[in-house]
């Protein structure tokens, strides 16, 4: 699954990288490493970009530019 397909509030985990674009490499360097859990905290009113939260930081990314990251949604804990 891709980051852009997640709904607002969804949590997910990075499971792989299928396209090592500049954006993907940079996100990895900013801490979105393999296995990192993150949450989609907000989707902009016009549908894109997306705000994601991991390692105590909140970043805004464009859904399309993150297509190189494979993710797996996590089931809600409670």
């Amino acid at each position, binding site marked *: 699954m891709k980051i852009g397909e997640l709904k607002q509030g969804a949590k997910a985990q990075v499971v792989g990288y299928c396209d090592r*674009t*500049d*954006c993907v*490499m*940079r*996100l*990895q*360097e*900013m*801490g979105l*490493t*393999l296995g990192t859990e993150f949450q989609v*905290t*907000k989707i*902009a*009113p*016009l*549908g*894109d*970009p997306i*705000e994601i939260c991991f*390692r*105590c*930081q*909140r*970043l*805004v*990314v*464009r859904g399309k*530019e993150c297509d190189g990251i494979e993710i797996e949604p996590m089931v809600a804990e409670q």
Partner: protein
Amino acid sequence: MTATPIVRTVLHTVALVGNPNAGKTSLFNALTGSQQKVANYPGVTVERAVGRLRGNTPGAAIEVVDVPGLYSTNAVSVDEQVAAEEIRGAAGPALDLLVFVADVTNLERSLYFFSQVADLGQPMIVALTMTDALAKQGGSVNIEALSQALGTVVVSVISHKGVGLEDLKSAILTALEQKPVPPPVGKEPGSKVEISTDERYKWAQEVRETSVLEGPPHRSTTEKIDAILTHRVFGLAIFVGVMYGLFQSIYTLAAPMMDGIEWLIGQLGDAVSPSIEGIPWLQSLVVDGLIGGVGSALVFLPQILILFFFIAALEGTGYLARSAFLMDRLLGWCGLSGRAFIPLLSSFACAIPGIMAARVMPDARSRLATIIIAPLMSCSARLPVYILLIGAFIEPRFGPGWAGFTLFAMHFVGLIIAIPIVLILNRNVLKMKRLPFIMELPRYQWPKWRDVWLSMFLRGKVFLQTAGTIIVLMSVVMWALLYFPRDIEGEARAKREYSAKNADFRERVSEDKYLQQVHVEQSYLGRIGKGIEPVFAPAGFDWRLSTAILCAFPAREVVVSSIGILFSLGSDAEEKDLQSALSSSTWPDGRPLFTPWTAVGFMVFFALCCQCMSTLATVRRETNSWKWPLFMFVYMTGLAYVAAVAIHRVSLLFG
């Protein structure tokens, strides 16, 4: 060298290094005060700020460099590359010490970059920022444990409150002597094999866990504010309100200040004028060329200062990033970014502050694209031309409805044209690597007024020093083109011609105004205008209109007074007289000069052309090269010409 004994001082260079938004610039401002010098790195548009360390530093002069923020030493863009090279010491003078600025609330990411910099093996100490924000969240940090884990000195600082600054200064002084080199993280000394990003983050996480105690998880104030400010409905409504306030301020708040500057410049001219009365050309050079030129640079200051006040305040609070978050979709599809909104919006007041505001974009490519289209937005200096021509040719024939529509359309023409231009720019012209769009949403906080004030002050200073100088030089050149050649003989001839005119003409046009007109006609600029008449003929403009366009180069609004002079009404003609003069003027063969279509063509030409030397001077400063202002001038003038000719041709078809 002077003979007087001077205290021997050693010059040291200390660089502040760290992630963007880590509080680097705030710390830099606190360490250096207003004694900063800002200049572009060679060949790129990113700036390097340098300042002297304030306070007592016995025996040493310490220069502090604010290196642009980086996430990694692996540079993606050219801007990042120059910053990374500076840290490596590959560019320019070697650095004596790195002060790594680490944000304690975002410690893992800071430490990732720290681990890369540590591998370079340079003397480095750490300044830990945002400890106050951590404390507010109920967390704490063990500085000693962190210092031990990193293998170097760590000093906690709260820049805007001045907390820890003295400790940091003395740590810098000690470190300059002892040169503490933290142990490399990612590789064995001497080995070339580096560990992976994942492993670096594992290390960073361990370090954080041993040194930082986080507060209990809770919904932060920032999240609560964001629930409103980036809300689907309220968020957009508030955004529109904020932007309206910003635009109104640069549009109306600046106006009285600009009038004030113009008045002062006028007073200065009047004061200086009598002392050099004996030499007319010198008097005109000083008053019209030099003082007038300084005035045309100074007049932009209010708008620049107001806009940068807003930008610095919005950036300081964290709202700037939110506004980009809201607008990114709207601008992103054609290759711009959400951050282009404020520069483009301000360009509707004036392109100069708009172009300068483009530096809120970290990506050089979208910054350039924004700069290049900014002058297409219809600035307030074009308004007098629209009003003059619409009043003369649209309103009397088609009524106020169409007049209003035309005025509205004129403001949209540039915006519409800008879209294909950006698409072409991105596809065919701008080839540099694009920085991925990854934007941090920082915590909301009150703006730090010192940072806001310094940002305003520096932007004003940089504008006057670089663009201002070019503006004054160009003003003098334009003055010379408009003043010379001037001889007694020509003047006498014009006077004779005037007295030979019939009484009716002399009734209409005073001798003064006639001489003014003849003089512009005879000047080099007037000759150029006449020379290029055939070029403008396909657009339906005669030499007077083409000369008026040329005269507008120092400032667009001058076009109205130039039209006044060229249509023998003097530079301060009433709008009514000007409008009737325009509608009654003809080609030599008796055809009317203006049809409504010619008026529209002239307005569209004026909306699209780049007849504004201050814009070009600002683009020169902001892009650090003459290539882009030249490109801008050529493409905009070409566009304007093609549009004006097309409008004229179409109007001929329909009679």
